[in-house]
């Protein structure tokens, strides 16, 4: 079964990745990143089960912690950008270019 889970996590991961590329709204991009993180957690858990050690789960646990921290800061940034720029579209913040 592990193979199945791995394939599923790969698919979810890629969907998340493509989502980041396609959507323009900052929050949706952020959600896609969360999706990618969850996909990796799934892979970790399935490996942990396969290997019979709990390390995989511990790593998944830590990934969640980091993801939480990241969300908090990310959303704060999005709020700040929104407040100053009145739009949450990622493409508007393109001053840093040639």
């Amino acid at each position, binding site marked *: 079964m*592990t193979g199945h889970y791995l394939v599923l996590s790969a698919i979810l991961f890629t969907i998340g990745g493509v989502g980041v590329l396609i959507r*323009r709204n900052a929050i949706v991009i952020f959600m896609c990143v969360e999706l990618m993180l969850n996909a990796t*957690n799934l892979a970790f858990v*399935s490996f942990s089960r396969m290997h019979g050690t709990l390390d995989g*789960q511990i790593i998944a646990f830590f990934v969640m912690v980091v993801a939480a921290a990241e969300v908090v800061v990310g959303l*704060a940034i999005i709020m700040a950008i929104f407040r100053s720029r009145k739009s949450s579209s990622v493409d508007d913040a393109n001053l840093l270019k040639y």
Partner: protein
Amino acid sequence: MSGVVAAGAHQTGESVIFWVLAVASVAAALGMILVRKVVYSALLLAVVMLSLAVFYAVNEAPFLAFVQVIVYTGAVLMLFLFVVMVVGVSSTESMVETIRGQRVAAAVAGIAFVALLILGFGHATLPATTGLKDANAAGGNVLGLARLIFTKYVFAFEVTSALLITAALGAMVLAHRERITPKPTQRQLSEARIRSDRVSPLPPPGTYARHNAVDMPALLPDGTVSELSVSPVIARRRGGTHEDLHGELPEVAAKHEATTLRAVVERQVEVDSKVEEKEK
């Protein structure tokens, strides 16, 4: 893929769950990136997360499943919804792609990536799943995890705690806005109001027979729309049509009402004038 299928043949129940939820989660994920309204994406993400929680449970990680449900979906996703509410629930965005060739390239990259991964997993010879029975044996999964965290990964644990604190602090700093001017006292507000040209309260929003929404502008005696009747915050958010205005924009609807009102009033005037002629 042959190795994988053989291993999972005997847990039929598990594979059933797997296939059902796998399809559900992939569909939800696709939905999340394709649906226009942000709130719907958030909810679809919740679906994916919950299905993952079930997967954790199936993979003998009950503690993680619960954490996933409570912490991740419960807190983090709700935080998302909270921000979506503040930022722009109705800011439906146009799906027109601005960067040339971005979609095509994204698709190509995605497919290539997933193809390569699957190719890799396919070729990898995965050993049989030994299961976590003995790992969880001494007091179950949580104790096992705890034992591991506080021995092998104790430093990582402390670091993550520090990380969380800094993240919280960071969020506060970013979101906090320094008050530049002193907070006006009640007295100052009233004096300003008297000094301003409008002492009376602002006109309430228009209420008509079939709808009394807050963002419906009131009408002035001459039939024009009164701007002050709708609060600026809501006015700013008004995009698109108002559902129960039969697809018309609020201003259009208001004008429509005004014309009918005027028609009624003029007819009343004609009637009165005919009456006066008769009396003459």
